[in-house]
């Protein structure tokens, strides 16, 4: 207590009002750095994955491991079917209930089917599936790869002259993209089914519902939904693999936990961000009529 510890020499004196601003600035700068580093790392990972996938597809000597691709597709996608069906069905059931009173006021009750179909195919099918898969598959991939770093498995692969990207990232990334698209098709159908269930209860004729849905859905709406789904799948796989592989061995189980949490958060942010961008692009090209 007698002598105070020597103060670290600061070139800029930060006092009073400035200090919260300064720390805010520092935090922003640190965050920007992190985001740039992550984007750069993910870009490198993506290009290496693309290179390895192309090699696996087109060079006879380098084989694409079909077996592990199927394993990953089951793990990422097939196991997610029940939860996707459950949630999308619930959304399908909810939507007509929300819209029906207002539409009925205008005597347009059967438009429930139209809105339901457009929302399902263009937006809610891909988006909700991506959010589910980010939590379901993204978190599990990040935790798995993080644990593999921890157990020296990644380093072991490297010293066995096996590229972890080809061996681990390629099957996982392909699996998330493929299964995202397939799950979105299921999601689309299930939302319509949910909507139909409620609509029939609300007194809309089943045939009219079917006809209105058929009129509302066109190939562009369906395709744009699937394009979005593929992009979301790519983002989820990439974020999850990147977060998992960048766990450092000395971070311990805390590092794995952080990678898992970050994956889910980043996945949701990235998916919604990409959704905005793609929807704006599709709209401005006049794809939505």
């Amino acid at each position, binding site marked *: *207590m007698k002598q105070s*510890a020597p103060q670290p020499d600061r070139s800029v004196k930060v006092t009073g009002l400035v200090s919260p601003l300064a720390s805010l600035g520092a935090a922003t700068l640190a965050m920007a750095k992190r985001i740039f580093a992550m984007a750069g790392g993910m870009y490198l990972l993506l290009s290496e994955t693309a290179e390895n996938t192309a090699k696996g597809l087109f060079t006879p000597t380098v084989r694409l491991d079909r077996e592990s691709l199927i*394993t990953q597709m089951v793990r990422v996608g097939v196991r997610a079917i029940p939860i996707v069906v459950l949630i999308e069905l619930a959304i399908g059931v909810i939507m007509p209930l929300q819209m029906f009173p207002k539409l009925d006021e205008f005597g347009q009750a059967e438009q429930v089917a139209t809105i339901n179909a457009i929302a399902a195919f263009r937006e809610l099918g891909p988006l909700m599936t991506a959010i589910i898969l980010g939590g379901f598959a993204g978190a599990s991939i990040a935790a798995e790869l993080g644990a*593999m770093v921890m*157990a*020296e*498995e990644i*380093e*072991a*692969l*490297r*010293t*066995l*002259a*096996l590229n972890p990207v080809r061996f681990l990232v390629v099957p996982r990334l392909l699996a998330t993209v493929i299964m995202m698209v397939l799950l979105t098709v299921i999601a689309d159908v299930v939302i319509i089914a949910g909507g139909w269930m409620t609509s029939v209860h609300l007194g809309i004729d089943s045939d009219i519902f079917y006809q209105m849905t058929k009129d509302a859905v066109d190939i562009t709406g369906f395709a744009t939904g699937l394009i979005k789904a593929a992009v979301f799948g790519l983002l989820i796989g990439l974020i999850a693999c990147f977060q998992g592989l960048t766990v450092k061995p000395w971070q311990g189980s805390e590092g794995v936990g952080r990678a898992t949490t970050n994956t889910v958060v980043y996945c949701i942010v990235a998916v919604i961000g990409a959704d905005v961008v793609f929807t704006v692009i599709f709209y401005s090209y006049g794809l939505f009529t």
Partner: protein
Amino acid sequence: MLTNTTEKTQTKPAVIQIRGLTKSFADQQVLGGIDLDVFQGEIMVIMGGSGCGKSTLLRHLVGSIRPDDGSVKMFGQEITTMAEHQLNEVRKRFGILFQSGALINSLSVGENVALPLREHTALDANTIEIMVKIKLELVGLRAHADKMPAQLSGGMKKRAGLARAIALDPQILFYDEPGAGLDPVTGAQIDRLIIDLTRKLNVTSVVVTHQMDSAFNIADRMCMLDKGVILKTGTRQEFETLRDTALEELSTEQDKLIRQFLRGDAEGPLAKRKVHGDYEKDLLQTK
């Protein structure tokens, strides 16, 4: 540092040649200029306390880390500046046993051993199966080929990791703390395996350890690493002599330090290091 052994081993070619290897992480220097030769067919044991840089040194040898400066030549090729695909060709010529075995958890023991064979050779599935059985028999695990790594004990994992390391018939084998976390009997069995494999397969072995009984069991030559530099390189006999010499007869602080480490004594130059600053002052000074 090499003067002790050059006469004896000059005739044999150096399989690994390390010169002036330095590495720092952040501001901390971990390796401060390492010079070391490992010769064909010998078991070289690298010893040192925790945090002395021995694991970092091993990771340089297998190409996992690139040094700040210096060179590592393996089979006469400089590996520190190699591109990844060239390095992979060198990697096929050596094997490494990791501390935990580092088996791929999603693959069975047999599949783990088959992995390098499947990926790096043109052998058909039947031949690979036979090879896997041979390798597993060498480490005494033939009956456990279908088990998953999670079902194995620590010692079995290490043996399975060893079977995978020798799958491609490497010329050099690296061992990272082979006895760590094992009971004495299993540890001794692993030591026996290291000696057997080195002699039977005529490979060169580099073992990193801090377990002295095991080190003296297996070593042909040894070197002592401390604070990122090699204090002494020599034959096992030289180290045994140093260990058994009375403390009064040693003149240099360095020899005393090595002796303490070899004997595992609590008192000595290494113990003094743990004292940091003035204890009383530190206790009384509060924030």
